[in-house]
């Protein structure tokens, strides 16, 4: 079923992808949802599809697909994704490297290493709901023509 929001999302994506085509590092951002279907062997197959009806509490998967379309390797590649404020971080998507996360947009690390300061000055351990931004660094240069993707799970508040 094609609906208006999905169509407009595709149009936006196409327009933006064209404008981003200038650099050698191409990153395509998408927001997907899990679709479950019964496979012939009786197992449940989970695929990621474009959402048509995300409501509060639904799980969504943010996918960043990257590719070096240039002729030279690219060093020190960093992708960072500030979360839309209606989105609560949950975890790395299975199969994706875990991102470093931040609760203040400045300090990044694993969630377990982060603390949140309360108005009264005390601090507490950070929870996934505190995450405001996620970031991945590529440990080695990205060779010309190579590609990959990162993905994380989140919930619509």
């Amino acid at each position, binding site marked *: *079923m094609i*609906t*208006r*929001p*999905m169509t*407009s*999302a595709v149009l*936006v*994506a196409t327009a*933006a*992808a064209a404008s*981003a085509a*200038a*650099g*050698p*590092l191409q*990153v*395509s*951002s*998408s*927001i997907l949802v899990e679709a479950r279907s019964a496979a012939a062997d009786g197992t449940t197959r989970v695929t990621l599809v474009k*959402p*048509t*009806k*995300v*409501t*509060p*509490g639904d799980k*969504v998967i*943010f996918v*960043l697909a*990257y590719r070096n379309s*240039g002729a*030279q390797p*690219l*060093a*020190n*590649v*960093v*992708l*960072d*994704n*500030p979360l*839309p404020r*209606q*989105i609560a971080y949950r975890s790395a998507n299975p199969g994706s490297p875990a991102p470093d996360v931040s609760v203040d947009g400045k300090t990044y690390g694993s969630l377990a290493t982060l603390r949140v300061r309360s108005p009264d000055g005390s601090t507490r351990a950070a929870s996934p709901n505190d995450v405001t931004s996620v970031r991945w660094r590529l440990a080695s240069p*990205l060779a010309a023509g190579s590609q990959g993707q990162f993905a994380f799970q989140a919930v*619509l*508040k």
Partner: protein
Amino acid sequence: MTPIGTPAGTPIVNTAGLRYDADGAAQSTSSNTVTIIVAERLDVALVRDGQGAIVVTAQPVAIPFTLTNLDNGAEAFTLAASVSPGMATLRTLVIDTDGDGRYDPAKDVAPVDGKTPLLSPGQSIKLLAILVATPEGGATNAVLTVTARSTTGSGATGNVYPSAGDGGGDAVVGPTGALATVSVPLGTALAGPVLLKSQSVRAADGSQTAVRDAVITYTLEARFTDAVTGARIADPIPVGTVFVPGSLSLDGAPLSDGADDDAGRFDPSTAQGAGVTVALGRVAAGSSHTVQFKAKIQ
């Protein structure tokens, strides 16, 4: 209560930033921007303010309800009210404009076309069902049923109404089915449980003569107007009779005589002599339960 969440129609906009070094120079750019529109989740709650059976008399009585829009969008609700045939008649179902729980005919009017105005996400309004006793309506208890249904759509959770949501997204039926129903038991007398006892006699010759060895079947019907917990029926075996083993039942299902894990038992030595006890536990408002047992005349 479930949080209402992000309003329907809100665009969720995501762009990733990227940095890299090419030819020794730091570069930065951004990904495409992807946008999804939050769909409208259709949900509603309707609760009665107060509990217990309502006593209906010739004077109109107002029964208050609270309707809450649990939708993440603005929504109107179709209201309906009905009374099962019996001693009460529904005059009208109105919106309690000032929310004071009292019926003011000048201000509290029935919703146009049976629909509420649009309610914002999380907004509640008060409703009043106005009832009077039916003349010559008898004493049969009646039940008032009030329903509220999302006008955009309702039904099975997950049903989709394409492009019907606020902001142009889809509308999706939420966990409540976008339909809420409340039933209120009505009575003509003061509320409280009632125990009705009756008996029938059957003698060996098939007659209903209370002679030696004739068997008396006792029927105890407990009627509850309110929901209660810890309800228990106890009845001594009448003097001059003996309990017929294995004859105890609750709502037609046999209960063993022993003090075991079913609800009933026969106790040959209570403070009032031999007797039967049946623990009903938690009972629903407007329900009735029937205990039967047999005793033989000595």
